[in-house]
């Protein structure tokens, strides 16, 4: 009867960065992360990932395109980022005419957008 043995690994449940063992890898910036036994891949277990959910760095709003009811960020006032036809425009001043070309801007959907704005803002303020 043949027996197989996996690579010996030690599993640690990490709830907080303070729980990280000292011998784990460090990036030049001083961040700590764990690697697989080969030392080449970065692995995080679910408990650790969940523990970082509300860490300070996650609070600043990310740079996302505004998609009504999907990305929970304030609606850009001057259509700085308009999403349509799968194209994201990162330029600051986007003219109204190009906005109208997008499939988000049919009159029907513009109404939806206005209705959604309140909801979006509420949800956003919850995150603050």
């Amino acid at each position, binding site marked *: 009867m043949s027996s197989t043995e996996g690579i010996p690994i030690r599993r640690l449940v990490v709830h907080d960065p303070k729980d990280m063992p000292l011998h784990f890898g460090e990036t030049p910036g001083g961040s700590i992360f764990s690697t697989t036994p080969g030392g080449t891949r970065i692995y995080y277990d679910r408990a650790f990932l969940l523990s970082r959910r509300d*860490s300070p760095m996650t*609070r600043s709003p*990310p740079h996302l395109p505004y998609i009504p009811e999907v990305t929970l960020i304030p609606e850009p006032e001057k259509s700085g980022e308009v999403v349509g036809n799968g194209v994201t425009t990162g330029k600051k001043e986007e003219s109204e005419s190009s906005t109208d070309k997008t499939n988000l801007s049919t009159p029907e959907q513009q109404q939806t957008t206005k209705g959604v704005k309140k909801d979006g803002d509420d949800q956003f303020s919850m995150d603050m």
Partner: protein
Amino acid sequence: MSIVDNNKVDTIDNQSDDAYATPISPLSPKEKSPASNEQQQEQKEESINEMQSLIQSSNDLTFPLEDAWSFWFFKNDRQCEWKDNLILITTVTTVESFWSVYNHLQLGSRLGQGCDYFLFKAHIQPMWEDRFNRSGGRWSLNLNKSQRATELDKYWLFTLLSLIGDQYTDDAQHVNGCVVSIRSKGDRISLWTKDWKNSDVTKRIGNRFREVADIPRNLALIFESHEDQESKRGATSKILFRA
């Protein structure tokens, strides 16, 4: 490292207590304190501010991810081509940027019918045509309508975390991304793999998927190849594996 920082912080705190002990006296401190004292105090305050910003920056730790991952959103608009309805939301490379994006996205269960979220490795487009997907397939978890409110978001989040956490170990290079599809006939969470003909790897990924996403045994996981789905569009395609 953090222990040393804490020690430093303690020292400064002690000093600052001393520094503040002087002016808080029954006699009006501003008039009585000599100018040199005020200067010293200012210096102390400066160093306290410095320490506070150091403490702040230690909170700003970021944890790098093994792979860069892109969030995509598919919006249901039948007037447009499928590809035109696919929107790249953003790409994340750290645990913190992942959460920052996730925390600002609508929950899957609250998306409109016919919408999808995708999380794919940044170099892979979330479509069959991509060269990494061409020979691939998907492990699918099908959920009914009542499970949308109770279970969908949990399984989806755990699936996302398993990808960014590189939890498929040696098989991670065979995992391309994941999709959540909101449909009136039943929602679906899929894990896309690179090479379905490699059955050992495919089966291992399926078993691991169940484990890392915490999917109970009573919920079936089925595997289909993209090829079969493409040729049998509309009809149900052949189930190649189960996990």
